[in-house]
């Protein structure tokens, strides 16, 4: 399993609908060699969900020849150029840095060739950083009649807004999964599954924590839980209480935000 945020020991994976859909969507993209987008605000668990699905792919029992999928994950710095995207992709696929003497035609021909081989999933993280030229390159590779790979864009704030501005993507997005904040009413039940420190805790307290700190963001809950576990250990208790919660607030910024 992927690492939980802040390496929180004892945390369980929450089987939210979005988490489950992420795996199904990736399977669909691979089956159809299609394009998909997973997006949402930072801290909603999309990266975790995608990584869990990729690990499942990696650890899958080898099936018939041709059923294995190679996964290639890339993330680019702010404002990458098309050339950078091509270079990085080629490096990821071949394991070697392409020579600088290669021109754009040679690079893209080599990429087309490589992506015509075994089935692949190419994951572009932080996709909101891509500009039109970069998306055009990926579109060119994906539309080529010889290539066969699934393309997944994963991005944070503004990702969908950036991508949906490109008409070329609108007709090509086969699956889209927005990650949103947790529904408030569902939080108490989810948190009791999330970590033993919330087991049996009063619903009112959990909702108070949600309103004060969680805000429906799994990352916030991870940070809060990490601090809460530490304080519970010091207090010699295995379950959070209102007093412990208050101390956690103080550690994380002084109370209600």
């Amino acid at each position, binding site marked *: 399993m992927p690492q939980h945020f802040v390496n929180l020991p004892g945390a369980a994976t929450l089987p939210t609908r979005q988490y489950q859909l992420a795996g199904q969507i990736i399977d669909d993209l691979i089956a159809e060699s299609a394009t998909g987008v997973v997006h949402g605000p930072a801290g909603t668990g999309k990266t975790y969900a995608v990584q869990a699905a990729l690990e499942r792919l990696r650890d899958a029992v080898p099936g018939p*020849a*041709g059923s294995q999928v190679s996964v290639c994950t890339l993330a680019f710095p702010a404002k990458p150029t098309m050339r950078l995207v091509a270079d990085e992709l080629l490096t990821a696929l071949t394991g070697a840095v392409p020579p600088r003497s290669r021109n754009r035609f040679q690079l893209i021909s080599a990429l087309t060739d490589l992506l*015509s081989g*075994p089935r692949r999933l190419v994951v572009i993280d932080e996709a909101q950083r891509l500009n039109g030229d970069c998306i055009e390159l990926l579109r060119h590779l994906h539309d080529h009649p010889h290539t066969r790979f699934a393309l997944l864009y994963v991005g944070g704030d503004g990702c969908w807004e950036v991508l949906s501005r490109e008409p070329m993507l609108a007709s090509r997005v086969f699956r889209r999964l927005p990650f949103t904040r947790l529904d408030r009413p569902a939080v108490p039940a989810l948190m009791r599954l999330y970590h033993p420190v919330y087991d049996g805790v009063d619903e009112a307290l959990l909702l108070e924590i949600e309103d004060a700190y969680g805000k429906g963001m799994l990352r916030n809950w991870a940070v809060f839980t990490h601090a809460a576990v530490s304080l519970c250990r010091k207090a010699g208790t295995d379950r959070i209480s209102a007093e412990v919660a208050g101390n956690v607030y103080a550690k994380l910024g002084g109370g209600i935000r």
Partner: protein
Amino acid sequence: MTGPTLREQLRDAGLSTWELGDLLGIHPHLVSDPHPLLTGRPVQVLIEIARRLDIHPADLVPELEPLLSHRRQDLGEDLGGQDGRADALTVLTALATARAPLSADQLARALGWQLPRAAAAIAATQDNPDLGGPLALRRIPPETWTVTPRLDVLTQVQRRALRDTTGAAILDDDQAHVLLAALAAGQKWQGGNYPALRAQPGWAAAEAALKEAGLIYSRSGPDEVHVSDDVRFSLRYTDDDHIARELGEPPLRAPVVIPPAWAGGTGPEARE
């Protein structure tokens, strides 16, 4: 190859269409052929493809199958001490190779063995007649050995026919001349001058060869020859009735057509 097409297997192994096309020396568009021709490819190409696919070479080129079952050649290998059957096989092969019957000590000397081993191998051959396949071990008195064809496989008729068969022969120029003359003027009613042609140098030998091969025959004397039905059928002078009768098939009657003169007429103008 059965199962997934070669193209699918190669693609799954990471070989792109262009790379495969270059490896096979064909246009990538032709790689869509489910069974691209492999038999004409250099050995290195086949090795590379088999390596990439992790498959047996005979799965790529079925013709390799019987060859790959051959034993590896190793001159230093010596199985005889442990395996009487291997020695027996060696003796049979040696006798088939030799030009004349050999005694046990002659065999031993030729094979580099001790005499007891050669004798034991001969005894093992006698005890295992199946080892010889189509050949059987024969004793030629007083104490030599050879191999001859088994007598229990062919019928007497087959043996006789094989003895009479002279082997596939190609018509040489003299024989072609004789056969042409036989077609054009072999029979008296054709009004040709076949007897005069027979006086030409080489005619007699060619005529004899054709008769022995059954292409022509004489009934009423050497100055008249007939062309066999097989030749007449093959040259489109007749249909296949004679063969149908021979095979016991009822022949189908085809309408007989009077042959026209050659379409160009006799003695057409020279083209040049």
